[in-house]
């Protein structure tokens, strides 16, 4: 493992009921890098995310984040270590207000017992205001999150990720169901985030990936099929076969 | 379907009855009761697990009330039954008892079946100085001034039953399996029986005691254990204090495993006609039960009681049983006491009760004893294939009920006596003192 690596998966495999979802996958990410992961359905993209975030334990292989072995840790521990994850379907706390959603996400207090007696500090308020500005939801702050539009929910979730102040963001299909304009805005947002944090984006939308303009990894049947610039990858005959063949 | 009988119906009924009598209907022997009705409470579960046994007792009291009103009521006033449903819930029993006594101001209460329901209402009756007639055989070891125990005490059921099993006619058993549901009645009864059997020379090794939870429905293991217990080369008998619900699967399993009454007789204290009505009795012929009443006993009073019952329930197949007779005796004793003192005042009625006599349905007389228990004849019946019992043995005369068992070391010196001279439910005859805090 080279010194300049933030996240490294080496020879990871996982099997569900005889089905190899991830097959000897190796991947590494440099600090500050943004990476797009593409691949057909069933290529193992979501499972890979699950493994990194501790939801699924691999059968074999090592997952390292800085010097920590993630396969030994569970989701909250990994999250506290600085890995944030955004789900494919926007998952926000619908009954809470936008503001409360962000408040819960803020890095800091995690013990339920401490939370019992915690009061919102001025510093926290400032951070929330900042986040609201970043995700362009300032006017929606007192609303229940359940009443937001689909795109707004996506942003709120990204805002919650930012509130966690992670070093690495895993983003699963952030633009599914968005309008073209929203898609482009999201790409801008991610690039902005990438200035301070590493990002892994899983996405189908090629226009969006193109707009991100980052290194691309193609997954197929649980392992890496190709890696490189989008143009270079999209000309790879194996990739073309996987996407268009058969 | 049993006829519904709410308070309002009842008032309507008594009005109608009065009207009919005023109009001179033939056969109206007594004057129609007039004036403010005397209320009595009926505290039996009509839903939940105990409804199966208790609903019948509610019907009996309603019938007796109707009959009494036809005879002219009590003190010339009509009786009115206040029926409540404690729903087989023991704290609810206490609540309903309080309601009957404090809100409905009933003159007396007829109710309870399980020991726990009685224990639950007891403090209420003592606090509010009510009168409870308790019509079910029970474990004894209790003697409250406010309760009249018209069912059997252990010495009026369990002891004679075991005597029968030990006798030649009963098979001369030398080995006893005491099986019961795990609650206070079987625990106490079995404790008394164990001591009694030992006094009769039965060794510890020849007594097996087994307890099962309420509603036990799978008896395979226990019945096979009984079989094994019975294979020691000695005549073996079973004394069953299994609670109502669990009896059906128990007897079904006995039948299925081929144990008949001639192999290992089972003497039951909680299986009566009502329970048999829910069973196919062919495999049970010859199994035994000890009671103070059987429907099959041929006596004029019993015949007419059964007829009234069939007329009242409009069901010629509805069975009668022991707790029904106990309710009948309790009700009539109360009526006598009220007529005697000319008042429903609780203290006066309680004091007037001791010594009163009421003919049993099956012959003989029930007399109220100073300990608020009564004298009862004891019968042993064998189950027949028609769902009735055939009486094979009976005590020569009535047995007086003992509140405290002489076979339990802690209570052998205790007596209950609520007459003026002693006025104590738990009087220690050795220490010459009333124990605890229960003074009349």
């Amino acid at each position, binding site marked *: 493992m080279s010194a300049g690596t933030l996240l490294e998966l080496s020879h990871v495999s996982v099997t569900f009921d005889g089905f190899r979802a991830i097959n000897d996958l190796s991947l590494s990410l440099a600090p500050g890098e943004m990476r797009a992961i593409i691949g057909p359905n069933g290529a193992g993209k979501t499972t890979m995310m699950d493994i990194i975030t501790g*939801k699924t334990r691999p059968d074999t292989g090592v997952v390292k984040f800085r010097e920590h072995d993630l396969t030994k840790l569970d989701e909250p521990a990994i999250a*506290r270590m600085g890995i944030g994850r955004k*789900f494919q379907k926007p998952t926000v706390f619908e*009954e809470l207000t936008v503001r409360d959603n962000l*408040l819960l996400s803020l890095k800091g207090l995690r013990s339920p017992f401490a939370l019992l007696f915690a009061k919102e500090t001025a510093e926290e308020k400032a951070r929330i205001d900042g986040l609201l500005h970043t995700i362009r939801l300032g006017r929606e702050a007192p609303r229940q999150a359940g009443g937001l539009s689909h795109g707004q929910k996506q942003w709120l979730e990204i805002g919650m990720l930012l509130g966690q102040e992670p070093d690495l963001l895993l983003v699963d299909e952030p633009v599914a169901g968005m309008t073209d304009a929203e898609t482009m805005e999201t790409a801008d947002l991610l690039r902005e985030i990438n200035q301070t944090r590493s990002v892994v984006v899983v996405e189908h939308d090629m226009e969006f990936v193109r707009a991100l303009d980052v290194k691309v990894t193609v997954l197929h049947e649980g392992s890496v099929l190709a890696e490189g610039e989008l143009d270079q990858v999209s000309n790879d005959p194996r990739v073309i076969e996987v996407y268009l063949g058969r | 379907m049993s006829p519904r009988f709410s308070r309002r119906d009842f008032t309507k009924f008594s009005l109608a009855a009065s009207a009919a009598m005023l109009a001179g209907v033939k056969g109206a022997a007594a004057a129609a009761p007039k004036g403010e009705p005397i209320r009595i409470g009926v505290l039996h579960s009509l839903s939940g697990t105990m409804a199966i046994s208790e609903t019948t007792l509610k019907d009996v009291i309603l019938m007796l009330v109707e009959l009494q009103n036809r005879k002219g009521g009590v003190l010339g006033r009509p009786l009115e039954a206040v029926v409540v449903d404690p729903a087989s819930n*023991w704290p609810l029993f206490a*609540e309903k008892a309080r309601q009957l006594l404090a809100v409905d101001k009933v003159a007396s209460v007829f109710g309870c079946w399980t020991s726990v329901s009685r*224990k639950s209402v007891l403090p209420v009756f003592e606090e509010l100085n009510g009168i409870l007639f308790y019509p079910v055989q029970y474990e004894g070891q209790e003697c409250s001034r406010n309760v009249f125990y018209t069912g059997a005490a252990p010495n009026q059921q369990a002891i004679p039953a075991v005597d029968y099993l030990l006798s030649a006619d009963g098979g001369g058993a030398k080995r006893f399996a005491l099986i019961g549901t795990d609650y206070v009645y079987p625990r106490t009864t079995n404790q008394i029986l164990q001591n009694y059997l030992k006094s009769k020379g039965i060794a510890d090794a020849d007594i097996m005691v087994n307890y099962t939870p309420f509603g036990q429905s799978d008896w395979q293991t226990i019945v096979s254990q009984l079989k094994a217990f019975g294979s020691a080369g000695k005549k073996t008998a079973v004394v069953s204090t299994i609670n109502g619900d669990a009896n059906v699967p128990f007897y079904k399993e006995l039948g299925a495993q081929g144990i008949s009454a001639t192999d290992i007789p089972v003497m039951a204290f909680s299986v009566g006609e009502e329970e048999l009505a829910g069973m196919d009795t062919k495999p049970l012929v010859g199994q035994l039960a000890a009671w103070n009443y059987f429907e099959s006993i041929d006596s004029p009073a019993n015949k007419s009681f059964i007829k009234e019952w069939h007329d009242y329930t409009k069901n010629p197949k509805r069975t009668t049983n022991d707790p029904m007779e106990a309710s009948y005796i309790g009700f009539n004793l109360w009526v006598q006491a009220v007529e005697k003192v000319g008042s429903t005042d609780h203290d006066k009625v309680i004091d007037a009760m001791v010594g009163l006599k009421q003919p049993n349905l099956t012959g003989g007389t029930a007399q109220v004893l100073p300990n608020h228990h009564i004298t009862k004849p004891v019968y042993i019946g064998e189950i027949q294939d028609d769902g009735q019992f055939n009486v094979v043995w009976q005590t020569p005369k009535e047995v007086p009920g003992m509140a405290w068992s002489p076979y339990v070391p802690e209570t052998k010196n205790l007596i209950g006596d609520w007459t003026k001279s002693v006025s104590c439910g738990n009087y220690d005859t050795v220490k010459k003192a009333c124990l605890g805090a*229960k003074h009349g």
Partner: protein
Amino acid sequence: MNASLSFRGASVTAVIVVLLTGVLAVGSLLPASSPVQVSPFIMTLAGKYLAYAMLALAVDLVWGFAGILTLGHAAFFALGGYAMGMYLVREIGARGVYGNADLPDFMVFLSWKSLPWYWWGSDHFPVALLLMLVVPAGLAGLFGWLAFRSRVSGVYLSIITQALTYALMLAFFQNGFGFGGNNGLTDFKDILGFDLHSPYTRAGMLFISGLILAGALLAARYVVGGRFGSLLIAVRDAESRTRFLGYRPEQVKLLVWVFSAVIAAIGGALYVIQVGIINPGEFAPANSIEAVIWVAVGGRGTLSGAVIGAILVNLGKTLFTAWLPEMWLYGLGALFMATTLFLPQGLMGLMRHLPEKRPSEVTPEVTNPEGGEA
């Protein structure tokens, strides 16, 4: 305003509870001749309802706010009741039937020679209080720690809570267990030297119950109202999401679970003092299910609704078992069906909608959101 904030009325309810119990307590001390005298019957009923309201409040905390459908909460209620019952039984002392100062009647009865070790100290009120809090909290803590840690959820959790209370019921039914078997503990005489049957004790107990219920309401409101409450609702609606934020939902659930068990246990203790009997029937799974129904009738997730539901359903039960002894089950059954069909948010939902005439809001259903990400 919105469904999740509907517990704001809890403080109002708390005040009403204190006022009402105060009025009842004073009313009960009036001479019997007074037309507004409150009879002891009403007093014992009111005491019972308040105790049940505590249980309902406890259920609402875990079901309404943490999404844990408990079918075994009566276990904690009954354990609290037994702890208090043990003390009350020891208070009887030599005034029992057998006049035995050392052993409770039921032990003499079964020929026990000495007190079992777990009865030691039960004659001291502070010990009883400690037992009342520690035993249910300990059991809840152990059970919750095991269950939440291994992410048992949904119906699986519901069924094992039911299994828990069922197992306890069977255990307490055994006479050999040392708690009076089926008969339970009863025939109490006094508490801390006050005669339990005296009108003053009754009035005092009712008022104390009212204060405790009000206190529990406020405490519950504090718990669900703050940041912990937000987290609780977050865990209820999207448990896995909270995990990726770095929270440990099992800790959140455990905390509220134990808190709720303690409230239930205090309810049980108040129940025993005022109803006068505790027996294993209180552990019956049906009792736990009924407690859930009270909450549903009153309105889940509203705190006040739990209290109102418990009182109304039990009041109905009291009245109908007397008025329509053979028909009341039809009424009760129909009430439960009608509530779920027509009042999905219970009476509190109805109250919320009537004045505002708004189309009914859809309550987000507490289905487990993990489903989508298998």
